[in-house]
């Protein structure tokens, strides 16, 4: 009986346009934030921070980026990981070559560089759509990784293009512990998730969705398709780029271009599909699901009396599970986990009545 909206009257459009119009939702959200900012740093151990929470948050950011492009603006991309790579390598070079630069600025510039790359590879969307565009984004994937591997300048002439993230320090404080890195990621992700939510509920979000749903009608309403699509590419790549920066600086530490492979791009796409196309919440749910699935699988398999399991069984099972789940979600719930969550909430609102 706790989840009721009785007695909550919206007396202005501002009230109705809040992110969480229901009071219970608002309270739950603040509680979640408090848990993430206070509870987790106090309670979680290093394994949880480093191996689970930080990557989930980072990939949520990447999934948000792809979701803006694919879920909201309807432009399919298979090159998200390449834009992560651009972000990571750009931030590395800004900090390396301009040592005076405070790292938040380098992070943002990393994202901006990725956005510019995204803009460039988004140009073909003027002429093509659908899977033609998807193939075009493969060009970004292969070309960018090749450039970062073949031109040693980008990795400061290290062997095989590996970069080692510099120590982050701000006003004398060094981000060395898992907790500090986790909090840094959390701050970035919450800020940009809020920005994404704001964009998608405002005019630009509606323009993106209009282009996605019916481009002819969108142009008749007065939307200029090209700038709107390009903005989606730029914003999306910025998010992916920033995720790449965080991946290098707060998660892996030492990273080579090949880490941002086509496989990673696909996994980000899977996060969006499983989580829910066109949903901010879905980006988080999908990222958590896709990051946690292999970890959970490993735990289960290692718990089995598994001497009889062939080598590489886990990773192949993982591939099959990913593939199977994608097909399953596309068939059964194309709007993903976010939609399931919404259905559950509606059920709860009406409980104990069936309708």
């Amino acid at each position, binding site marked *: 009986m706790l989840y009721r909206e009785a007695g909550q009257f919206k007396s202005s459009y501002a009230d109705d346009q809040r992110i969480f119009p229901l009071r219970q939702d608002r309270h739950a959200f603040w509680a979640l934030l408090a848990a993430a900012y206070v509870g987790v740093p106090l309670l979680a151990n290093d394994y949880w921070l480093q191996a689970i929470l930080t990557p989930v948050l980072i990939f949520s950011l990447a999934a948000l980026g792809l979701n803006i492009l694919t879920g909201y603006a*309807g432009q*399919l991309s298979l090159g998200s990981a390449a834009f992560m790579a651009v972000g990571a390598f750009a931030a590395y070079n800004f900090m390396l070559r301009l040592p005076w630069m405070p790292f938040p600025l380098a992070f943002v510039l990393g994202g901006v560089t990725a956005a510019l790359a995204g803009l460039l590879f988004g*140009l*073909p969307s003027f*002429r*093509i759509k*659908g*899977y*033609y565009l*998807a*193939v*075009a984004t*493969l*060009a970004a994937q*292969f*070309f960018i990784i*090749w450039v970062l*591997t*073949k*031109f040693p300048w980008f990795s400061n002439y290290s062997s095989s293009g590996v970069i080692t993230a510099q120590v982050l320090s701000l006003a004398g404080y060094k981000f060395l512990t898992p907790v500090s890195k986790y909090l840094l990621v959390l701050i970035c992700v919450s800020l940009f998730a809020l920005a994404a939510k704001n964009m998608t509920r405002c005019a630009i979000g509606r323009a993106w969705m209009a282009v996605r749903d019916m481009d*002819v009608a969108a142009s008749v309403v007065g939307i200029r398709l090209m700038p709107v699509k390009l903005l989606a590419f730029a914003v999306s790549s910025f998010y992916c780029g920033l995720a790449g920066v965080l991946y290098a600086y707060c998660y892996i530490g030492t990273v080579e271009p090949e880490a941002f492979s*086509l496989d990673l791009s*696909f996994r980000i*796409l*899977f996060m969006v*599909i499983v989580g829910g196309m066109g949903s901010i919440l879905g980006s988080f749910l999908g990222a958590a699901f896709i990051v946690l699935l292999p970890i959970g699988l490993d735990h289960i398999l290692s718990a089995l009396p598994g001497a009889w399991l*062939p*080598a*590489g*069984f886990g990773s*192949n*099972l*993982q*591939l*099959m*599970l*990913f*593939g*199977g*789940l*994608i*097909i399953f979600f*596309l*068939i059964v719930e*194309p709007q993903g986990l976010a939609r399931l969550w919404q259905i559950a909430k509606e059920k709860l609102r009406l409980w104990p009545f069936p309708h």
Partner: protein
Amino acid sequence: MSELQFFAEVLTGGLLSGLLYALVALGFVLIYKASGVFNFAQGAMVFFAALTYVGCLEKLPRWTGLAADSVLLVWLALLLALAAMLLLALAIERLVLRPLVNQPPQTLFMATIGLAYFIEGLAQGVWGANVRGLELGIQDVPMDWVLDHTGMIVSRFDLFAAGVAATLVTGLALFFRHSRVGRALRAVADDHQAALSVGIPLATIWRIVWAIAGFVALVSGLIWGARNGVQFALTYTALKALPVLILGGFESVPGAIVGGLIVGASEKLAEVYIGPWVGGGVESWFPYMLALLFLLIRPEGLFGEKHMDRV
């Protein structure tokens, strides 16, 4: 060797390997025409087919007690691989295509990405992930006759592969032109609803076409596998069929062939002539960039029809 001779040699090598791209692309085109699905899993199917063949060849002596060098073994392995592809086609139609009928093309496309993951996991899960050699009995050596007469190095294997590709393409073209299935397929490609309404069994056509695509994948897998070894990287090679399709258009068999030739030749030429300037590895991205540039100029492909959005 003169500059021109060298150029011709590179070009010939590129054209011959281009026919192999065309072969993979052919599988895409068949499926696209019949079911409107852009089948991203074609590369995975190539990998699966080759791995199944090699795997059967390894395991069969133990299962059947035949001598490891028996000719019968090869045929048995081929038959089993073919049967596996057939089963796969039936399963895909039943479990993926049918539930997703009438969904937007983008959804189907993403489903085939999932399918690719599933097939790759399945193939390696069943047969193991180690790289294997595949022996077709044709040596990858220069042809003496060509070398003597023109001074160019043309691989015997490349020529053989090109011959197989050409035979397969011609055979399929004839099959689709003259058989009942072929006519039905063309009707389906033209208009699903209309084809259904004159009594063409859509599901059957899909199964047949996916099975044929499986057969094409097997042939491509054998040839690619014999050249580069049967390994996961095969799926990346097969991905190059995508730029081939963009160049040739998704619905055109001749387009797939010409596109394959262009991609094969241009990437070899780029590797040889641009590669040294930029540190090599140009082949990994060149076809995609070529396709990208091409799209900007002619989005409908070489053989595709220009069409206008009607509202």
